[in-house]
């Protein structure tokens, strides 16, 4: 924990000498104001430190002290409903202490030391029994939605439980149990610190096979993500990345959501802060905020803390995953994180890779997304937990050859491509159906078959091929006009239009439309595909195209989105209507032929 002296200040990077005892990625306190920094390079006794706060006013000669600890955050009850900056300082506490602006050198704990939690011990525990890391000690009701499981943290060693936990109200610092490992007796508290750059240990990884249901039709039906999967949403500005991320934060069926606003707009975070406490989770009838942790490092906050914010977010998510929950991390936007890396790399005078990004960009991105997964957690119970990661990317000019997009696509399994043309037409979510993909269809097919419908895969493939065909036909129409298409092709265009306008287009601001359950999604698509098949066979039977284009049933399809979730029988009515109407025309045309 040697004390050194600053010799150089260049933006968020400072260099200090006399740091003989410093270690890589150790946290250092810089100057009398104790600004927080992290050692990112060592040359002899010189340490290069990235500082998480504004460095103006610092100069050579000021003191730097190592803390001996890696950049860590506090994990324990009280995380939910919080809003943190990039290095886990609660923004509401900063506001109480410093007013509207974020000033420097504020040292505030991530978890409230005064707050008391009602703790219920695990009744099966006996003193003298052996206990392992990850074993359950008891529970705290953190919010109405989430039971916080207190486990033996991976910072301790397993051993003999010499003092078992008792029921009572405790602060996070109170010792609730003692575990003897060898000669050493360790105190167990409700919280512990964990270094953010180190993934938390697990027993083993499993293959994801259950979908993360988001209620967004284009996602769940065409390009689903599995619980424990990873996805990316790249798109130019204005294409609706943030709206997609917000919709996922609101509606996806994860137990816990960690939303990382990394280098984004201040007002957007305010929007989330104001809206989430008012939004009610449809499954539990509780405010969505009770399952949410927000990390907000807006674009004007110090750049180094932005780099840390995604790690802070994913570490909190891993912690809840270890309790056996389904957790989703939404990172908006990973481009800002990459840019923060680029800025630090430039200040370190490293040789740049593509577009000035450091050469280690792809490996950092891969490390981050690989922290997702479906896992067996540590502990005797063998709990399963999942961690899904969804990262937005903001490529310059929407250009997908951007190094951040490319490095991300290498590791994620789902790609939702936002297209600005769709956004101009106000088709939201503006996820392009011809360029996006999901590699989870096979993993999820069994679940879909059993839980939604045996015809799931078939219907989806039929819809996709209609959209594909539409893409080709549109090219043709541009050249030769609509009239030269065959009747069958005209039917394809018509069906594709239903899929686009009545299925894929979804309003985030409409009460019924904002969220669609899987069953309804399937019934909607099934209805469109049924109509398509019926029209195709009617064409074979020489029913005039005009009649088919003017089917009354099409109106019903246009209003499908407004069918409430408990009125699924309405789909039967629409489907019967289609059959009846077309059967009528077929009969007519037979008579004509006769």
């Amino acid at each position, binding site marked *: 924990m040697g004390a050194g002296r600053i010799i150089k200040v260049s933006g968020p990077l400072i260099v200090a000498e006399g740091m003989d005892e410093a270690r890589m990625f150790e946290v250092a306190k810089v100057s009398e104001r104790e600004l927080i920094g992290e050692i990112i390079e060592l040359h002899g006794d010189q340490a290069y430190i990235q500082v998480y706060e504004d460095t*103006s006013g610092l100069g050579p000669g000021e003191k730097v002290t190592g803390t001996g600890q890696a950049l860590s955050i506090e994990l324990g009850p009280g995380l939910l409903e919080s809003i943190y900056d990039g290095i886990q300082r609660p*923004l*509401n506490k900063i506001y109480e202490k410093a007013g*509207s602006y974020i000033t420097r050198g504020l040292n505030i704990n991530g978890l409230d030391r005064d707050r008391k939690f009602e703790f219920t011990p695990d009744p099966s525990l006996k003193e003298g029994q052996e206990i392992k890391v990850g074993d359950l000690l008891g529970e705290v009701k953190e919010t109405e939605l989430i039971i916080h499981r207190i486990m033996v943290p991976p910072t301790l060693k397993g051993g003999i439980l010499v003092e078992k936990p008792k029921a009572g109200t405790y602060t996070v610092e109170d010792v609730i149990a003692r575990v003897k490992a060898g000669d050493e007796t360790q105190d167990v508290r409700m919280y512990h610190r964990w270094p953010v750059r180190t993934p938390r240990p697990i027993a083993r990884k499993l293959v994801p096979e259950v979908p993360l249901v988001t209620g967004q039709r284009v996602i769940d039906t065409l390009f689903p993500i599995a619980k424990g999967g990873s996805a990316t949403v790249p798109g130019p500005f204005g294409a609706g990345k943030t709206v997609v991320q917000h919709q996922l934060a609101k509606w996806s069926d994860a137990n816990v959501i960690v939303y990382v606003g990394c280098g984004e707009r201040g007002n957007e975070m305010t929007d989330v802060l104001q809206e989430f406490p008012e939004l009610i989770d449809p499954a539990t009838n509780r405010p969505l905020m009770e399952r949410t942790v927000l990390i*907000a490092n*807006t674009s004007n906050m110090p750049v180094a803390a932005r780099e840390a914010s995604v790690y802070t977010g994913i570490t909190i998510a891993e912690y809840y995953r270890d309790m056996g929950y389904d957790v989703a991390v939404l990172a908006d936007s990973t481009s800002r994180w990459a840019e923060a890396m680029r800025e630090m790399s430039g200040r370190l005078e490293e040789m740049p890779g593509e577009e000035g990004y450091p050469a280690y960009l792809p490996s950092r991105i891969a490390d981050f997304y690989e922290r997702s997964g479906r896992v067996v957690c540590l502990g005797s119970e063998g709990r399963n937990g999942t961690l899904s990661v969804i990262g937005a990317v903001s490529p310059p000019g929407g250009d997908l050859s951007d190094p951040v997009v490319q490095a991300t696509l290498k590791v994620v399994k789902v790609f939702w491509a936002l297209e600005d043309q769709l956004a101009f*037409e106000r088709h939201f979510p503006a996820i392009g159906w011809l360029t996006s993909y999901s590699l989870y269809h096979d993993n999820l097919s069994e679940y879909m078959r059993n839980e939604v419908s045996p015809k799931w895969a078939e219907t989806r493939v039929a819809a996709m091929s209609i959209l594909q065909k539409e893409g080709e036909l549109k090219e043709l129409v541009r050249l030769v006009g609509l009239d030269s298409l065959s009747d069958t092709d005209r039917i394809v265009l018509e069906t594709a*239009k239903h899929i686009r306008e009545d299925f894929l287009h979804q309003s985030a601001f409409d009460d019924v439309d904002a969220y669609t359950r899987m069953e309804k999604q399937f019934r909607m698509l099934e209805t469109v595909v049924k109509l398509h098949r019926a029209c195709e066979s009617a064409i074979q039977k020489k029913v005039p195209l005009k009649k088919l284009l*003017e089917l009354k049933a099409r109106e019903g399809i246009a209003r499908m989105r407004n069918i409430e979730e408990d009125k699924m029988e309405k789909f039967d009515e629409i489907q019967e209507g289609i059959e009846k109407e077309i059967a009528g025309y077929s009969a007519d045309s037979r008579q004509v032929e006769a």
Partner: protein
Amino acid sequence: MVTEYTTIGEIAGPLVLLTDVDHATYEELVEIELPSGEQRRGKVLEVNRDRVLVQIFEGTRGVDISSTKVRFLGKSLELAVSPDILGRIFNGLGSPIDDGPKIIPEMMLDINGNPINPYARIYPQEFIQTGISSIDGLNTLVRGQKLPIFSGFGLPHSELAAQIARQATVPGSESPFAIVFAAMGITFEEANYFIRDFQETGAMERVVLFINLANDPTIERIATPRAALTAAEYLAFERGMHVLVILTDLTNYCEALREVSVARKEIPGRRGYPGYLYTDLSTIYERAGLLKGDKEGEVREGSITQIPVLSMPDDDKTHPIPDLTGYITEGQIILDRSLHRKGIYPPVNVLPSLSRLRDKGIGKGRTREDHSNLANQLFSSYAKSKEVEELAVVLGEAALTDTDRSFMALGEEFEDKFVRQAIDENRTIEETLSIGWDLLSKIPRAEIKRISEEYIDKYLPGNKDIDAGGETAGKKPESGSETAEEQS
């Protein structure tokens, strides 16, 4: 206490490097005295032991190695503020240049400001009526928003910005906006246009101007928007005023930044702009909004609404400056050269324009219940008309269906009646919306899909079941024939 140094070792571009400096700190303000006695100001960019890199705001012309004196002032660049700054003109560093008296400071504020805690913000949702239909109707501005104008060389962005400054009001609120105007590297004529406009409309007494013209020192521009926003923050959050900030032209600002970056031999990002351009721009744009009071639950009086103007080099929206701006600001108003050529003022291309804060700022109780529906319908109908137009170019107008033609008609009228307005025409939101509804009567009612039936019945002019597209009368509006032909 203040030591004078005459130890300049190198001079390159706007930068000087000093050696043997005892104690300098990062971002510290520096005073330079030239052999001629002229005083200039600079800022510390980097300190490395006793070597200090300083950026001179007024440029290095005339600075020499042997006798120029440098003093470190132990603080960063500050702006003197008091209520008397209203009606005054300052240079790009915040010193008065209008022959008026010295400002007796009520407080001295660091022009870099501090980042606003997102927790302390209030989400902007008060509608601002600019009197311009393409903004009010479709890309609505709200109080506390940052909404840039993306323009090109030779397009009337100054006229539009001045018109917004003149006409902006919050319906139902009496107090007009105070205006903070920052000119960065624009010509005398452009700056004069604004000044004259403020004088003629009697607005001058609620305007603060920061002027850095094209022939003023380039590096001074880096401080100009920050000085202006510091003044704005003072007026808004200390004096409780609603402030409209116009920054023009951000492209010149970014070029100044690039000049410094190149002089420092930094690794460039796209097109030679520094890798930290995003971060740097955000420290300007994010200084807008509404704040909570000092205690939970209170609202602080005052607000900052920003209208930055930037010219897109070669009208290219993917150029780093508009691109990074678009990622920070809450939307953008895009001016279009082809509309300008058609003689349409203001030449706002509504399709790629966007106001991200629109949806919470409009609707019942703010503008009118049908506003959101109507705006969406106009967007999609106008997009459709553009598609048809393209089709007509390839296939000839004869190949168009009647519905297609109705959309073409809507598109033309949209540009002519909705977008086009006089430079002094101040439309109320009701007028804007009713022009919008008039346009929708051009297309068959069945094509109006984004508006609820209730509003169509209530607001669509003329007969309820009118089939204005020229289709055969009496046909069921829901019938699929037109919709089928929409494919293209």
